[in-house]
């Protein structure tokens, strides 16, 4: 294959060849190449197939705006990324790339038949087609069409990489390290402000890298660049970060940066994350992102070999690659002329420069003539030819505003330039207003909402001198606003390439415009006629045009297509562009990996997992865990050969027959202390507290102000002014927040304070008829007899030598104790009790057995049997309400009309006719299973278990007027038939006399 590499040109290392593969075929590039530049050096323009029509596509840009050259890239198992931009992916040894959206191969793609069926895939295709028939959704649209129209494939393996995140604070954040950004960094850095200068490319320099002929302060551009970077590197207050994309600009100058750390490395160092997400808070932001080149819109403008002129210039100067030997240039802006001149000087033979403008600066035509390049002004282009690579360009004269006679120009590449548009994305993220500039025919940043400066081409200035001057001013201003005295340095620039251009719609054609494939959005295959069709079909808002045509909705976020789409829509609507407006730019600026967003939250640190002091024992003893709120709790402890059902039944039997041991450390604990503690408790909880003696406990019920159950727990009075409050595991933080809210804002006069002690204590429950026998020897100072230490007693003592708060409480219906010891002693006490408990055949049990045993006793679990819509009455908890209390949180709501009306769902027991059938939790309940659908649902099953103690299934449910249905048979429809079950008013299934409890 011919080499298009130019020796001694570019910033690549000609002495360091790098091997890589595309679709299994080996290529060679150079260190410093991107995948795109390396392929171009090998003469390869065909780099993708389009989204909808499967048209062959070549690389069109040299940056993150690339819509076409997308590959799957891979570095071993679990390291695959789809839709990698070839223009950003730096070459590394052994890079494996695969082309996308083609079958069987990139050069011959069956899907290309769509291209000939183009009229079927017009604007609004999805809306029009996928309406009917409904059954086609599952069988045709999803599997076939979605498969045919698409980009890369999702990775299927577990991502083997790690990702990082970092907060940062700086005086000045500068986005973009072209001339404007560099000048800003020099100005702010010299002033002593802390500066972060970030750029998404591998190398800082921006435009300077593509325009080496400019002379700054008497030095060639690249020498000046090296000197500027060296100065910045020497300033300790300046950080320069490359391969770092500012993806989003949020409130109060928070900017998200995605830094790519390893994708360019042959061998990443051990422990290095692939990417790091920075959350930078800057006092001042300078946006120096430059401008984006727009394509020209003409039939066949997407043929491989048709490339943006500025991109061709970049490939030439940065990578030493000429995009063709005989390029044709089509432009609406002076800048493309220089690209042609540079290519000619590098040895290419430009076939023609076609400028759509009637006249251009004579200096340009003179220079072209001197280089032997034919120039044509006042022309239009109306087509290209060539299957997988452009062969010719069709150029027409313009006669009376219309395209006249055509002429074909042979070429092997087309450089196009439809002018430039300032990169407004980040500015738009701030909701900053854009202002239409009539002279420049583009949008510029208008009213600001943040402390931000926009410098250089990003606000419509053209040329290196202007960018340097503007950047320096912006940097100095930003540094001053951030508190440093600063001056804007001045620069002298010669050989600057200033220029101008015009903004156009699609180019005029002599052919049927309805048949033209003049692309606006290359990535989503949107053409000029799609925009016009959308307007004809009634779309008036640019936002509707965008969604109907999908223009600008691909992963390139409309970087190339937005303004061209606007110009054509405005023309079709007969309005001026500012009356039509731009669509909204939203973060991220360019596609960002999920990994970067997730950061450290992956695998073991996916989310917080809280563990109790006894958790290591449970793990060592084979516990199966379940997540409860952020905790992981021992669910059950299977013995060899046991399934969950067998283990849970055994655990329940063990506790009820002798003694079980349970880790209750996750229960929320709040210490309520102060002279007004009892007053506070009276106001917060439904129950009365004034008469609760020191050393006694009570079940406490907490409502929201709306009267619905929020939480519950056993509360012990340790002293006149001190309560040990327990909450549900999941409710701990919420309850403390609610209590603080009332205390701080409603009753600030109360002298009482709240302290979370959840984690101060490890809590071990001993439950079962032998609990006292086991425990007593370890509690020398307390008489644990039923008379001396009855149910619902609490005492501060020592247990096994550890300071302890000992409760006599039960959540199983058995004789029970809960021992709280300082967390560091939790495991030691557990092991001590477990060893001693072997004499009683002690059974460690998990949360599932706990749930079964409490359900056998009809004890509710807030959050499982209640759902935020149950009142105490609904849950049969009226007994827990202090009737004599004048007020408590939620009391007034209990007499609201809706709360006392008939028809409320009430908690009842549910016993299946077939005792072996265990209902499914969450299953719906109906009166008549043969009624037509949708059925009238009366409620749902909240808790359901197999009860070993009762030898049958039990369930709790909330049912409309449930208590009135005592004895009624209701039905639980399931996919394989309806299950009849009888309502029982009471939910206490076992030992209703509580004889075990008070033993």
């Amino acid at each position: 294959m011919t080499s298009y590499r130019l020796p001694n040109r570019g910033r690549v290392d000609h002495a360091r060849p790098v091997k890589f593969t595309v679709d299994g075929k080996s290529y060679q590039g150079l260190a410093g190449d991107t995948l795109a530049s390396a392929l171009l050096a090998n003469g390869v323009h065909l780099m993708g197939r389009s989204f909808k029509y499967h048209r062959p596509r070549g690389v069109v840009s040299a940056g993150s705006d690339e819509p076409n050259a997308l590959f799957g890239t891979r570095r071993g198992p679990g390291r695959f990324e789809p839709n990698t931009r070839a223009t950003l992916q730096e070459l590394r040894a052994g890079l494996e790339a695969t082309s996308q959206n083609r079958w069987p191969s990139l050069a011959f793609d069956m899907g290309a038949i769509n291209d000939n069926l183009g009229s079927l895939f017009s604007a609004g295709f999805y809306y029009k087609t996928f309406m009917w028939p409904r059954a086609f959704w599952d069988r045709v649209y999803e599997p076939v069409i979605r498969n045919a129209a698409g980009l890369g494939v999702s990775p299927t393996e577990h991502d083997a990489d790690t990702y990082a995140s970092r907060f940062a604070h700086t005086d000045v954040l500068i986005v973009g390290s072209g001339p404007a950004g560099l000048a800003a960094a020099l100005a702010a850095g010299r002033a002593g402000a802390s500066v972060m200068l970030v750029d998404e490319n591998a190398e800082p320099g921006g435009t300077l890298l593509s325009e080496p002929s400019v002379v700054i302060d008497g030095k060639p551009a690249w020498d000046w660049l090296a000197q500027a970077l060296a100065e910045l590197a020497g300033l300790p207050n300046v950080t320069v970060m490359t391969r770092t994309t500012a993806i989003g600009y949020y409130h109060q100058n928070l900017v998200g940066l995605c830094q790519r750390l390893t994708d360019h490395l042959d061998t990443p160092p051990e422990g290095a994350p692939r990417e790091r997400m920075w959350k930078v808070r800057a006092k001042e932001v300078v946006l120096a992102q430059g401008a984006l080149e727009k394509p020209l819109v003409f039939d066949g403008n997407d043929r491989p070999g048709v490339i943006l002129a500025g991109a061709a210039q970049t490939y030439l100067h940065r990578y030493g690659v000429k995009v063709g030997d005989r390029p044709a240039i089509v432009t609406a802006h002076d800048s493309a002329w220089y690209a042609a001149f540079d290519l000619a000087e590098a040895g290419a033979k430009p076939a023609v420069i076609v400028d759509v403008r009637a006249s251009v600066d004579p200096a340009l035509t003179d220079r072209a003539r001197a280089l032997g390049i034919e120039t044509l002004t006042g022309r239009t282009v109306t087509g290209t030819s060539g299957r997988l690579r452009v062969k010719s360009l069709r150029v027409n004269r313009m006669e009376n505003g219309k395209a006249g006679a055509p002429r074909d120009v042979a070429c092997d590449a087309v450089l196009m330039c439809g002018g430039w548009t300032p990169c407004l994305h980040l500015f738009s993220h701030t909701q900053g207003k854009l202002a239409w500039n009539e002279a420049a025919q583009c949008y510029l940043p208008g009213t600001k909402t943040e402390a931000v400066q926009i410098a250089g081409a990003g606000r419509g200035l053209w040329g290196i001198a202007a960018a340097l001057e503007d950047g320096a001013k912006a940097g100095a201003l930003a540094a001053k606003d951030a508190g440093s005295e600063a001056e804007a340095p001045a620069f002298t620039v010669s050989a600057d390439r200033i220029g101008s251009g015009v903004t156009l719609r699609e180019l005029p054609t002599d052919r049927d415009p309805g048949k033209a494939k003049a692309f606006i959005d290359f990535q989503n295959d949107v053409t000029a006629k799609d925009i016009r069709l959308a307007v004809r079909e009634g779309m008036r808002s640019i936002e509707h045009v965008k969604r109907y045509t999908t223009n600008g909705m691909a992963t390139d976020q409309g970087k190339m297509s937005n303004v061209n789409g606007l110009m054509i829509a405005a023309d079709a609507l007969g309005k001026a562009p500012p009356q039509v407006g731009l669509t909204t730019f939203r973060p991220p600026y360019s596609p960002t990996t999920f990994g970067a967003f997730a950061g450290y939250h992956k695998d073991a640190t996916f989310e917080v997992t809280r563990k109790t002091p006894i958790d290591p024992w449970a793990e060592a003893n084979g516990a199966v865990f379940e997540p409860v709120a952020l905790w992981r709790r021992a669910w059950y402890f299977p013995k060899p050969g046991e399934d969950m059902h067998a283990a849970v039944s055994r655990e329940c039997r063990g506790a009820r027959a002798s003694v079980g041991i349970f880790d209750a450390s996750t229960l929320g604990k709040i210490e309520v202390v102060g002279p007004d503690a009892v007053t506070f408790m009276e106001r917060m909880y439904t129950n009365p507290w004034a008469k609760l003696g020191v050393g006694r406990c009570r079940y406490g019920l907490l409502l929201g102000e709306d009267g619905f159950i929020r939480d519950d727990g056993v509360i012990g009075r340790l002293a006149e002014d001190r309560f040990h409050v327990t909450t549900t595991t999941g409710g701990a933080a919420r309850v403390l927040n609610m209590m603080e809210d009332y205390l701080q804002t409603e009753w600030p006069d109360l002298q009482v304070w709240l302290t979370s002690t959840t984690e101060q204590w490890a809590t071990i429950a001993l439950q079962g008829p032998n609990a006292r026998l086991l425990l007593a020897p370890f509690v020398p100072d307390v008489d644990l007899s039923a008379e001396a230490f009855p149910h619902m007693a609490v005492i501060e003592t020592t247990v096994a030598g550890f300071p302890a708060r000992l409760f006599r409480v039960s959540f199983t219906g058995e004789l029970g104790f809960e021992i709280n010891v300082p967390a560091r002693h939790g495991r030691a006490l557990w092991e001590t009790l477990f060893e001693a408990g072997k004499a009683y055949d002690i059974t460690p049990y998990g949360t599932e057995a706990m749930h079964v045993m409490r359900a056998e006793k009809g004890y509710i679990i807030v959050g499982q049997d209640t759902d935020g819509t149950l009142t105490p009455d609904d849950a049969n908890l009226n007994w827990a309400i202090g009737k004599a209390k004048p007020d408590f949180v939620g009391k007034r709501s209990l007499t609201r009309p809706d709360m006392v009306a008939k028809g409320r769902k009430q908690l009842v027991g549910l016993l299946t006719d077939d005792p072996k059938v265990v209902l499914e939790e969450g299953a719906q309940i109906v009166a008549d299973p043969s009624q037509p659908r949708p059925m009238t649902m009366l409620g749902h099953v909240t808790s359901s278990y197999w009860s070993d103690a009762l030898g049958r299934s039990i369930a709790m449910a909330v049912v409309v007027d449930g208590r009135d249905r005592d004895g009624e048979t209701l039905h639980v429809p399931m996919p394989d038939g309806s299950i009849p079950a009888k309502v029982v008013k009471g939910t206490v299934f076992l030992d209703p006399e509580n004889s075990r409890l008070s033993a």
Partner: protein
Amino acid sequence: MLLIHCPYCDETLPELEFAYAGEAHIARPADPSKLSDEEWRDFLFIRTNPKGVHFERWRHINGCGRFFNAVRETVGDKFLSTYEAGEPRPDVATLTGEAK
């Protein structure tokens, strides 16, 4: 992520340390039993939800722990002021610079 000035800490700190806590200046009636059903409903559920200046509560939950009040402009999502719980509403015209 906003920056929020905690009036108790007298520091401007990242939003991650704070939690939103609903509309401000809605005091729990001293004797709820005296309220009609409609009045109690309004206290429980009816909120202003304005487009523009909103008086609201935040808690510096991962900081000093205090609930405090804030004035936030909900369109631009910008804080105009924060002040301690129990203080009266500040004058909005002064905050927005519309006062003479």
